């Protein structure tokens, strides 16, 4: 709280001084009055860091004070605001990566899915909405890497940072509000490529939805592959100083003289004590309703070969069963099954029960296990095959 008050007092005093001066002022004077701070989050918990990002976005007056928040996370996968976790994440192999699994989070900002660990640096630039400028922020990063490590990085057409003009080392995410805006750059420094590939490489899953897919992993690279001495901590200092010495409006270099006039570096502890209300925001990011429930409506389809034991006509002939599920708000809203003639003629009884039990349930393997338990002895061999097919649609996703 004291920390916030300190900030607010500083801003208020700046504003009073401003009002006392002449009203007609050019951008240059505004630029001179602009203060900059670098906040370094002491948390490595993805949900807490996303909550801190939202807290600053919602509560800070950024008109005369631009902020760069630097943060890193324990291994996690972060999907974009409107992405589908089931089409982005390789759920079936996640357990092998880390004991207790890898955290899965949905951010509020746009963009693609990223894998984070301690080798990944996140930079969030907070400005008023009118000053939102992807390119300018990227230039700060490019200059800092060149100044500190002598390595040249390019800015691509869609504002990604590129090594060797084609391999992507960063991803962008951005959010615009009524007054404030932020731009997040997720920079791969020494990120585990193996873990990232396991976490994000999908087998062929037939999901249809209007959501955006992420770029192929083969197009990505780590910064350390070009500059072996780069680490996340050296980069924190380099980017922080570069941000402080860069003029807020024109983007011109103000040298160390300007950097020393700024508010400097602040280690922040994102707790309720410093940021009242942050816990509630964290709870939102950690909830099933936000992470999975916010998934845009989609359908998933899969074909299954019917075991020959279940087909007594034309032994040897193959038949397949097609399952299509519609998922809305992360819950199963509709299921259709195409039952092949061969199976149908035997008389299938469990269909209705299986369907009714699943509608409205969360799209998780647990839903199918609960269903099996409740139906228990009611299911015969054929029905079991049907539920097993439905379950596989889920677990393969």
């Amino acid at each position, binding site marked *: 709280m004291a920390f916030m008050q300190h900030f607010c007092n500083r801003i208020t005093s700046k504003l009073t001084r401003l009002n006392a001066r002449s009203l007609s002022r050019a951008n240059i004077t505004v630029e001179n009055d602009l203060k900059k701070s670098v906040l370094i989050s002491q948390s490595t918990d993805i949900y807490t860091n996303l909550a801190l990002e939202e807290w600053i976005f919602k509560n800070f007056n950024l008109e005369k004070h631009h902020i760069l928040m630097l943060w890193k996370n324990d291994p996690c996968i972060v999907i*974009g*605001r*409107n992405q589908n976790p089931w089409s982005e994440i390789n759920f079936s192999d996640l357990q092998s990566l880390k004991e207790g699994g890898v955290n899965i989070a949905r951010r*509020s*900002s*746009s963009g693609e899915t990223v894998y984070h660990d301690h080798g990944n640096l996140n930079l969030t630039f907070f400005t008023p909405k009118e000053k*939102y400028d*992807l390119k300018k922020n990227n230039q700060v990063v490019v200059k800092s890497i060149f100044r500190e490590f002598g390595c040249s990085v390019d800015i691509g057409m869609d504002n990604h940072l590129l090594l060797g003009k084609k391999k992507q080392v960063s991803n962008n995410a*951005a*959010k*615009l*509000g*009524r007054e404030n*805006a932020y*731009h997040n750059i997720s920079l791969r420094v020494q990120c585990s490529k193996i873990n990232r590939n396991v976490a994000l490489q999908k087998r062929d899953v037939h999901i249809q939805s*209007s*959501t*955006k897919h992420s770029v192929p992993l083969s197009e990505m690279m780590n910064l350390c592959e070009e500059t072996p001495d780069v680490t996340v901590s050296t980069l924190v200092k380099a980017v922080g100083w570069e941000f402080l010495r860069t003029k807020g409006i024109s983007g011109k270099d103000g040298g160390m003289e300007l950097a020393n006039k700024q508010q400097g570096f602040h280690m922040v502890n994102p707790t309720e004590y410093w940021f009242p209300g942050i816990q509630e925001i964290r709870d939102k990011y950690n909830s099933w309703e936000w992470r999975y429930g916010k998934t*845009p409506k989609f359908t998933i389809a899969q074909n299954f070969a019917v075991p020959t034991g279940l087909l007594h006509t034309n032994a040897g002939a193959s038949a397949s069963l097609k399952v299509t599920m519609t998922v809305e708000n992360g819950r199963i809203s509709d299921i259709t099954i195409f039952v092949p003639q061969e199976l149908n003629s035997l008389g299938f009884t469990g269909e209705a029960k299986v369907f009714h039990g699943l509608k409205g349930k969360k799209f998780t393997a647990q839903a199918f296990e609960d269903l099996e338990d409740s139906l228990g002895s009611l299911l015969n061999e054929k029905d079991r095959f049907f539920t097993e097919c439905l379950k596989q649609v889920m677990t393969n996703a």
Partner: protein
Amino acid sequence: MAVVPRVLCRRFLQNFSSPRFIHTSLKVYAERLFTEKHEWVKLDGKIGTIGISDYAQEALGDVVYAQLPDVNTEIKQKEECGALESVKAASEIYSPVSGKVIEKNEAVEETPSLINTSCYDKGWLFKLELANESELKELMTETKYTEFLKTQESH
């Protein structure tokens, strides 16, 4: 007798005088009210239809996903009530007036690009029953909004 010459006269003006055209198009949007943050509301009794302005859709770029408030949600003026994701960023939606949502534009949820192609017509976002009509006083008419945009550009 008097009607015929007037019709002729209007046709003559529409065909040959371009200022007349601009005037007519302004009249079409005359009942829309705008905010400084580029949202609009069009009234029909107590029901307000909400959308974003042409300036806003252009600034956003191609909208790829629209998340609109659900029916029966109570919305407060200037409070976040949904989000539009474009190729550039996720942008929050704010309502210019308070009220209860009675309909959302499902066509826009299916085809978000309607916001880019028809922001004043097919690309409307949601309809609500106004809770406080006095909030309308703060809003700008189309003419005032156009002037406001000019002052923004000069900055």
